[in-house]
């Protein structure tokens, strides 16, 4: 088992690199498009008379949401799978971090629709959920990098 994890270590490091690029580029895109404050996020979704922008259409929102509803959980699933397989953290801690990551991802995706169609104050939730997801992604990447450098991994789980 240890030998098998060792064979996959370089791939784990490569994948961590690509996930880091995804997370950093997502943060930059968020800052460029939505801004870093609740007011600018609200303006992005609901439009602004001063900035002369229209509210986001449902088509536009779904065009962004649908691919992310596949890509974000898939990325989290693989990352969690690899960290669990490498046996880097205790099962309970793995579950807590996994639930937190998936929860933040879902809240972040849904909050955008909420800002547009329900309550503007959900922009705060959107911002916090995105920041939280970015932090958990960073934690997963660091764990993957640790998996590469660690000499004797002790598998906790071997998901099929």
């Amino acid at each position, binding site marked *: *088992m240890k030998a*098998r994890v060792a*064979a*996959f270590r*370089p*791939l784990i490091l*490569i*994948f961590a*690199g*690509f*996930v880091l*690029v*995804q997370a950093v*580029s*997502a943060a*930059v*895109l968020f800052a*460029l*498009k939505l801004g870093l404050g609740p007011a600018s996020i609200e303006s992005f979704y609901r439009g602004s008379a001063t900035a002369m922008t229209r509210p986001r259409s449902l088509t536009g929102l779904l065009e962004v949401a649908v691919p992310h509803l596949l*890509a974000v959980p*898939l*990325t989290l699933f*693989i990352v969690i*799978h690899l960290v669990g*397989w490498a046996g880097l953290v205790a099962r309970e801690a793995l579950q807590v971090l996994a639930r937190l990551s998936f929860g933040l991802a879902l809240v972040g995706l849904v909050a955008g629709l909420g800002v547009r169609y329900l309550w503007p104050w959900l922009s705060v939730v959107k911002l916090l959920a995105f920041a939280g997801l970015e932090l958990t992604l960073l934690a997963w990447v660091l764990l993957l990098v640790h998996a590469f450098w660690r000499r004797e991994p002790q598998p906790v789980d*071997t*998901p*099929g």
Partner: protein
Amino acid sequence: MRFLISPTREALSRSRPPVQLFLGFGAVLLLALVGQRGVEGELTASGVFERYLGSGDPSEVMPVAALVESLHVSAFVYGFLWLMLGSLLVVSPVRERLRAGLTFGGAAACAFDLASPWLVVGLHGAPLLRVASFGLALGFLAVSVVVLGRTYGREPA
């Protein structure tokens, strides 16, 4: 995933048909990527220059948001492709040097392809970098697909 963790001969042989189908889709994806780059004019130096730098006027340079968006999507595609292809290479009967060359060379080529639009914009020229980076990334991916198609699930020669 079980066949990657416990790669017995029987498990690998049994998983060969679905892996072959996956590799078939991989080949279609590569063709689609070539088509996409072609439609966007990114297979020639002049097309790359026009796409990223317009006529050369600073006002026509591709916006940062568009560059980041492209980086974001491509990192997802390349990341998953190399994780899958690299994992299959680990359990395939290929020489260690070939496996390492494809895995590290391919990942480096894809990283170069992620960086090349920024290099073209940053250098305000050198569009051939973008053409070359895609050629390299595509080459490594295509060779990996072919090598896996021929070796995965088979007895070592």
